[in-house]
């Protein structure tokens, strides 16, 4: 009963306001249009219990619909709508860039691995490439890639259990066979490449790591990465697999 009472009250008030508005209107030119909209509002009020019956969040929906539409008329509303859309776009762009960087890192790692295997004849277990988004303000970067992403670290993990002599011997075999088939299961080389800004401590650590692997191989890998990828020598880590180093 209270529900019907409220509904009636609402209808009466909307009609009253509508009549009042019509009195306020300046002239007859606008009258038809205003009457149309006001009658629609009265219809909406009459329908409101029906809408409540069909959807629980009717009032919220009405409000959101009105807000959406008023965005076109109100500068402020339009501004906020634009802002939110821009923010969403920025978010999407960042996510896509992160995905692209990850993909680029994987692809670069795959190619590095193949090149290292071809160049040195050793078998590489995996190459991990970290790519960092380039910042225009950061220093020490080559002029050419002021804005683009930069290879932060390259980690080459060699397969373990191979002596340099054996590696050298295998290299000759590799020259004949496809590289992929000549994987030696137990040598690991890990190389790490960092940005030029990287600290000296990191570099020396890298050098310490490289001691484990044949220095000749390490040097060749570093030279290859520097030549092909522009990765600075001190940021490449070549290390053996964990079975050997531990």
């Amino acid at each position, binding site marked *: 009963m209270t529900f019907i009472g409220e509904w009636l009250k609402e209808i009466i008030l909307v009609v009253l306001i509508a009549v009042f508005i019509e009195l306020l209107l300046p002239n007859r030119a*606008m009258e038809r249009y205003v009457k149309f909209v006001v009658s629609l509002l009265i219809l909406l009020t009459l329908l409101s219990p029906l809408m409540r019956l069909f959807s629980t969040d009717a009032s919220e929906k009405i409000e959101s619909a009105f807000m959406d539409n008023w965005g076109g008329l109100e500068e402020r509303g339009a501004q906020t709508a634009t802002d939110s859309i821009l923010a969403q776009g920025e978010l999407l762009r960042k996510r896509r860039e992160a995905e692209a960087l990850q993909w680029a890192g994987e692809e670069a790692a795959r190619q590095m691995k193949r090149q290292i295997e071809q160049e040195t004849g050793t078998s590489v277990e995996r190459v991990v490439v970290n790519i960092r988004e380039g910042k225009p303000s950061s220093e020490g970067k080559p002029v050419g890639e002021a804005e683009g992403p930069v290879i932060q670290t390259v980690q080459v993990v060699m397969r373990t259990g191979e002596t340099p002599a054996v590696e050298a011997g295998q290299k000759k075999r590799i020259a004949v066979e496809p590289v992929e088939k000549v994987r030696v299961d137990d040598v690991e080389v890990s190389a790490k490449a960092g940005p030029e800004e990287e600290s000296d401590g990191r570099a020396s650590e890298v050098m310490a790591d490289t001691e484990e692997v044949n220095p000749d191989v390490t040097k060749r890998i570093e030279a290859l990465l520097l030549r092909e990828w522009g990765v600075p020598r001190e940021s490449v880590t070549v290390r053996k697999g964990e079975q050997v180093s531990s």
Partner: protein
Amino acid sequence: MEIIQVVGLGLVATILILVIKEQKPLFAFLIAASTGIYIFLFLIGKIGGIIEVLEDLAESSGVQMIYLKTILKIIGIAYIAEFGAQIVRDAGQESIASKIELAGKVMIMVLAIPIITIIIETVMKLLPA
């Protein structure tokens, strides 16, 4: 007594315009426009009082404020469009005045769009699928 002020202002402005119109039509137009703006600004305070009462009424009786806001927006658009159109019409630019009125009508119709959408949605839900 405020109505006397308004009418007096209007009369004085009219006489001034009649006197000046022969020599300087431009100034006559300026006087007319500024008188109109003055009366309009004078009325805005009064309309504000009316609207406050309406809002209080609506709030106390539980009418959705969004309805009242829509209606008030319609009044505002109608008044402003009408005012601008009349000033322009006084200056003799009938076509521009009618364009202003057209803009006002379109704006009012834009306000009707969400209402129409909601009503149609409700009716569509009523119909069996």
